[in-house]
């Protein structure tokens, strides 16, 4: 069971590495890759990451990446993977804002700022679980169905003990998702400020 979990984690990490590289390649060109090209790229790169290549390395490439960054949360993984399907469907800013707010409260407390440890809630707090469900329901009511699916899959993965962690937080949030959300929020605020400044210049009286 443990070896199956380890193999699946390496498969997941290989696909994630392939997705990141594909997205970076996509950024180099203004023309969107056709779906078939993306699928072929993912297949090729993920195989490179999954199988041991030798060349003096004791492990496959994905195991080195996993050693450094650990297992990504299901939410991050699915957001990354699905972003390959369509680059035009953006994640709502309000979701990123919520993630950023949660992260800047959660990490300092979990890392020893006080005796309250919100990370401990993830092991089985009913109230925390209800809060996660409400968050997902709000995503649905705000018409972001992808968010509902992703959070529901993360909950199922936690209940099935898909990763090594028994903590729901590890399926929902990780530092990379937090950093992505923070950059997006600050980027949006900066963009808004710039826009206001420009409109202020254009419409400044007399």
């Amino acid at each position, binding site marked *: 069971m443990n070896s199956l979990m380890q193999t699946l984690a390496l498969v997941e990490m290989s696909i994630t590495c392939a997705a990141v590289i594909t997205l970076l390649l996509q950024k180099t060109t203004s023309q969107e890759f056709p779906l078939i090209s993306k699928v072929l790229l993912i297949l090729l790169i993920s195989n490179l990451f999954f199988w041991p290549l030798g060349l003096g390395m004791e492990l496959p490439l994905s*195991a080195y990446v996993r050693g450094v960054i650990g297992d990504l949360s299901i939410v991050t993984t699915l957001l990354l993977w699905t972003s390959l399907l369509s680059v035009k469907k953006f994640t709502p800013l309000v979701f990123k804002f919520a993630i950023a707010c949660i992260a800047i409260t959660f990490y300092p407390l979990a890392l020893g700022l006080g005796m309250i440890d919100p990370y401990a809630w993830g*092991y089985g707090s009913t109230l925390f679980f209800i809060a996660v469900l409400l968050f997902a329901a709000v995503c649905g009511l705000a018409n972001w169905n992808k968010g*509902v699916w992703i959070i529901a899959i993360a909950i199922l993965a936690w209940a099935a003990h898909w990763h090594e962690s028994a903590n729901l937080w590890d399926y929902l949030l990780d530092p990379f998702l937090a950093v992505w959300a923070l950059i997006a929020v600050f980027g949006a605020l900066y963009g808004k400020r710039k826009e206001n400044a420009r409109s202020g210049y254009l419409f400044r009286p007399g």
Partner: protein
Amino acid sequence: MSRVLALCFLLLAAVIGFLHIDSRPPWAPFAINAVTSVEEVDVPVSPKSKNQSISSKASIPSPISTWLPDTGAASVHAASLIALKDGAIRAFWFAGSREGAADVVINSAVFDPKSSDWSAPMVVMDRVSAEKGLSRYIAKLGNPVPARMADGRLQLFFVTVSIGGWAGSSISSVISDDEGLTWSNPQRLISSPLINLSTLVKSPAISFADGRLGLPAYHEWIGRFGEFLRIDAGQVIDKRHMSSGRSAIQPLVFVNNAQDATAYFRQTRSAGQAKQVPVSQTQNAGQSWQSEADLPIANPNSAVTGLQLNNGARILVLNNLETGRYRMVLMMADAKSGQWQTIEVLEDDEALPEDQRKEFSYPYLISHDSSDAHLVYTWDRKKIRHRYFSGAWLKRAQSQLDTPPVDVISQEAK
């Protein structure tokens, strides 16, 4: 329509999630060992020593001293012990060209109390085995801490690092069905939300009444604080902060009763703050901890070990200094008074010039029959020293506690 589908799927996940929460074991009280009165304690037979320097006073043998087997490694550290079912003691420690080197392995050897001999050392875990078993890159290995599971198997927790120094540590564990001769594949314990970075172990685990283990651990990257992990086989099923901020690591837990426990820490405070042993207390079997007043024993940012004997007395081994690790002492507190007194100076290089003083650190204590004590500690990073204190010797030391103390804790902390 797609929204309805998504919400229905969420409902399904919610039901499964609630069932999962419902299936989790409730938090259990601590398992407690019965405490017998001093008069009822039998004097056990002490093991024969090869290098005994026994005083002829009474018939109580002096503590014996041995060395853990030399593996040829230049640097050794972080020894720990566990009692085996046949009465022997198994030790674990890490050894390599230097602390944190890629060639560091976790060694083990068995002490036979009858012959007072250590077996040949064996390698329990090396870096490559760890990374293959854990399916991830491992740069180095660290502290090993053994525990006895409720079903009788041995579990060895050990620290691994993939990037950076010890602050980048995580805990993994292996399990043995044959008292440590062979071990399972390692399993990773997930205990931190920040890429699972920076959780380490040093002190012995304690048992809950439901058979699960409570593992005192600590975080030492952004914060430096104690954490109490509730372990079910190879996974963390709950955890709690034992302290906060950047001032206390390596908790050592004394269980007072089924709900009450006290933790003593290694202090990591900044300059200008008290260099004493920080204390936390729980009154609900570890579900929440509160910081208490320091134990007024000097601590130079070095590990503390201890155990409770079956007559209620407690012993501690530590460096009772504010700076340096050149002195190590054995202290005892009677169950009634709770007053800590030094009963034996184990090592002391105070008379030597500063640059010639050796480091005595990372003590680890266990008892085989709840009345005696086996101690191991790092001796100048080159060797691991083992000391054995018989039940009779400790009982005599306890009986002498009532005489006017020569070296009480208030003096230690000066």
